[in-house]
């Protein structure tokens, strides 16, 4: 049987983590290819509905990453985001959504190694937990998506 390769979607901020991920690449640090990086202007822009859409469209895990506190390009975006994540994690956990599938992190533009670690560790953790079947079963996308339907 083929090993389960999780689909990970990473929502990262333009100024820190995206640049950090770039540094990982230019430093030739090898890391898991399971991650699809989506660039946002700021972590403050990452609405929780976007995370829900990722799960809906077949993500098994999500990474949300941005500038360290006090490093935000817009001064306070990540502070606001942090508050929202605290509440969101509470809500998702209460609603029965597996919050251990969402990894939040701070990765600066200088932390190429940390980005590789965050991705590798998340991929390893999600491999352990397995595909997010529960969510996929109810996802609208599986109604029309043959690949999704055959997964059931």
């Amino acid at each position, binding site marked *: 049987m083929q090993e389960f390769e999780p689909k990970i979607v990473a929502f990262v901020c333009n100024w820190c983590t995206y640049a950090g991920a770039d540094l990982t690449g230019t430093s030739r640090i090898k890391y898991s290819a399971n991650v699809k990086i989506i660039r946002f202007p700021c972590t403050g822009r990452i609405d929780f*509905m976007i995370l829900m859409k990722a799960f809906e469209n077949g993500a098994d895990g999500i990474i949300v990453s941005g500038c360290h506190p006090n490093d935000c390009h817009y001064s306070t975006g990540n502070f*606001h985001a*942090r508050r929202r*994540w*605290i*509440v969101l994690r*509470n809500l998702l956990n209460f*609603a029965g*959504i597996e919050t251990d599938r969402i990894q939040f992190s701070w990765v600066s533009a200088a932390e190429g190694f940390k980005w590789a670690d965050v991705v590798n560790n998340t991929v390893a953790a999600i491999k352990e937990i397995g595909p997010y079947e529960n969510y996929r079963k109810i996802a609208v996308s599986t109604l029309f998506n043959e690949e999704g339907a055959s997964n059931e």
Partner: protein
Amino acid sequence: MNDLIKKVTQLLDDKTINVFIGYGQGTASRIRTIFVKNSSQVENLVYTSDCTANLAGYLLKHEVKKIGKLGILANDSALRSMMQLASEFQIKDGEVYVLHAAKDGSFTEFADFQSIEAYLVTIDTGITSDEQERIAKLEAMTVKERWIFWNKEFEKCIKCYACRAACPMCYCHRCTTDVNQPQWIPVASHEQGNLDYHLMRAMHLAGRCVNCGECANACPMDIPLNLLTYQLIAPIRTTFDATAGMKADAVYALSTFKPDDKENFII
């Protein structure tokens, strides 16, 4: 009751207000909201133990606002809704005439927001022990069990949006639910759209919900969707020291921050 009728008649006659939002007799034995516009309609007002609805939601409806100056019969949760609306710059002090209906059936006039705030700190604004119990029971479950529980509940949802219509805090002219580019919430009452809708609702009410329970009361399918927002009240209070609907000049917990906000999940 006579006090109420006398007071409202006087208010309408001397044009202090143009419409009074209160309770009236609906079909069968139901209580409904009525809008008293002149003293000849005042007799329609009723006040019984069934009059528990939070009427503050009507204050922002444009059909009501355009009538003129508003008066409202407010219970405790309506007062809290009004404080929350004021903190969100939706109503101004002195804009609405507030007649408070206490649990013991007496009516008192609140002249300004300050007196409402002073009253609110003296009463119990928490959720009921029954609701606490239900939340604790859910919290004791595993994530998978909760998933199954909420899936079963959300499966019943017919997407009538009665919860949204009943909620005094849901006043956006264009709700995320109505946005179709992009289509955040699938329109059909399918499990996915239902889950998205209810999570979106709860998230947008996090830290703003004043636990009046109107959403669950309005639900024709008896989904305990108030528990979703109630559950967030305690963590928001303990982590951010914020309670919705207590002060007219409060800053919304999620539109501010502290540099040293504590969390344990960001690596």
